[in-house]
């Protein structure tokens, strides 16, 4: 094995998508593939999602959306990009039939200013309280009017309306849903009609029927990453998709201690905080990480006998007795996504079915 491997279980990814599809029906699923599919690998995960009958992919930005489009996944596949900067190639995006999230009139004007051959496909975004992207309630009518005007002139097609919520509490999310519904009603009064209305990401779509509308944008749960705080993926019926493993390169036997050296470290994206916090599976035991460097960590073997070359599983689905990503996240005071996306792109990804 190279110094470390990220093993991605595509069957588990597809199982999670099918479970989510069953839960949210009759709404459909957008598979969120931003940030290299949460560190799992963009194109492989896109193909697996499509094989699981997903037809909407969430890309984040235009370069990612165009990489998906160029992968020839099928012209009928919808691809959504929503984080834009002035340098972006709107023209190619429009001509490649990328659906664009639009947060304000300036963004809309920049998109309409390019000389595309087809109408821009718009998803108008209302801010329902998260206060990141999206039009404020005051600016919403103006954005809707501008989009309707562009549609009437043949330069745009209004496809969707959307928002993103804070998942702060039941009650806050209820408020956000109400604001979303009010924004839709107002827009319809101004002549906009939406084929897809979408608000929820993983957690809300799983928990609340009233959050689902026509489409839900699922990232974390598709990768088998649960929201944390003690809730395990298994409790939700989800299967962890990512396994991180390596192999022992050295066993040091001191007078009091036996230590195994494993060739993964902070330079591979392993958080330094794993020391004296996290245990790895080795030789049938869960053993504590005792120190870390740029490209190594050590494990206290206690009385156990371990050979050079033996596999070390850092996290996975638990089937070899290892911790899950979820358990790592709880131990490190973060969420599974952060650990997964930080893993170095130089670590080899291996796909299993």
């Amino acid at each position, binding site marked *: 094995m190279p110094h470390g491997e990220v093993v991605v279980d595509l069957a588990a990814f597809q199982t999670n998508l099918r479970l989510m599809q069953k839960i949210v029906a009759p709404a459909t699923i957008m598979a969120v593939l931003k940030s290299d599919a949460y560190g799992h690998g963009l194109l492989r995960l896109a193909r697996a999602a499509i094989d699981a009958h997903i037809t909407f992919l969430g890309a984040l930005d*235009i370069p*990612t959306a165009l990489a998906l489009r160029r992968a020839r996944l099928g012209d009928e596949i919808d691809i959504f990009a929503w984080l834009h900067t002035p340098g972006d190639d709107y023209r190619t995006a429009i001509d490649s039939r990328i659906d664009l999230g639009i947060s304000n009139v300036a963004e809309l004007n920049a998109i309409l200013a390019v000389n595309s051959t087809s109408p821009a496909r718009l998803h108008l975004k209302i801010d329902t309280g998260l*206060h990141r992207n999206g039009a404020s309630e005051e600016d919403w009518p103006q954005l809707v009017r501008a989009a309707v005007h562009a549609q009437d002139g043949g330069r745009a097609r209004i496809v969707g309306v959307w928002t993103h919520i804070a998942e702060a509490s039941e009650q*806050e999310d209820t408020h956000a849903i109400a604001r979303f519904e009010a924004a839709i009603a107002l827009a319809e009064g101004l002549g906009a009609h939406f084929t897809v209305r979408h608000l929820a990401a993983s957690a809300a779509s799983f928990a609340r029927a009233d959050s689902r509308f026509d489409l839900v944008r699922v990232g974390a749960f598709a990768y088998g990453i649960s929201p944390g705080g003690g809730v395990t993926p298994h409790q939700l019926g989800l299967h962890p998709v990512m396994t991180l493993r390596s192999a022992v390169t050295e066993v040091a036997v001191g007078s009091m201690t036996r230590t195994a050296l494993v060739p993964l470290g*902070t*330079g591979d*994206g392993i958080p330094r905080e794993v020391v004296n916090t996290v245990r790895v599976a080795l030789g049938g035991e869960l053993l504590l990480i005792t120190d870390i460097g740029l490209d190594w960590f050590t494990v206290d073997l206690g009385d156990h006998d371990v050979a050079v070359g033996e596999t070390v599983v850092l996290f996975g689905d638990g089937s070899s007795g290892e911790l899950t990503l979820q358990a790592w996240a709880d131990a490190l*005071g973060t969420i599974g996504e*952060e650990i997964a996306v930080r893993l*170095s792109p130089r670590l080899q990804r291996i796909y299993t079915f």
Partner: protein
Amino acid sequence: MTNPFLHEALIDEAAISANAAALCSDGDADLFVADVRADGYGHGIVESARAAIAGGATWLGVSCDADVAQLKSAGLGAPAVVIHRGHAKQLGAKGSVLAGALIRGPELYGLTADARVKPTMRVSGRVVGTKTISAGEGVSYGYTYRAPRTTNLALVALGYANGLDRFASNRGSVQLDGKLRMIAGRVAMNVIVLELGEDSTQTGAEAVLFGNPDSDEPAISAWASSLGKPAMDIASVMGSLLPRRYR
């Protein structure tokens, strides 16, 4: 797929060379090992190796055979050694320790307090949106930030997928238009929100997480100490996750 319009890690190759030159006198220059593990601490293994050699390094310190292959295929002929917890060991199963080696890693990239060396990485992200919120309104997941009064906000395209730690939520600060601004609410995967108070900014403005302290930019050491971790952890992770640009 990374997007150089949203954010970048700007690498100063000349500064790596200058750091190497400044460190040469620490020992035998014929045994000066430039540590380029972890993709050159996030600066790019090939570019770092080339810059360090230009500054006087004579050996390259690597983690594994794959590193050696990458250096060779880029045409770098300097001999490589495996850095092994304080030692430089020659390649191969029976490789001997390079006695008297002068190994320089974090120092080469200005990641230590050594006054002779300068930082070599600058991380920035673009403002992708602005808005104004009223007192009491929340920001980002869980509404862990509530505006104490009416405030302007800037949405910046840097998140934990770029190595900006979630731990910096409501704690770290980022420089925008010359001023340090607090991260309001949770760091998300791809964005952070900065609290601007009464000041405003423009979409497209550049927010600097750390850069060149000589040009009044925040130092990577300040960012690192706000998180309680060594600067080398930050450089090696952010440099591997962000699009890199060289100058």
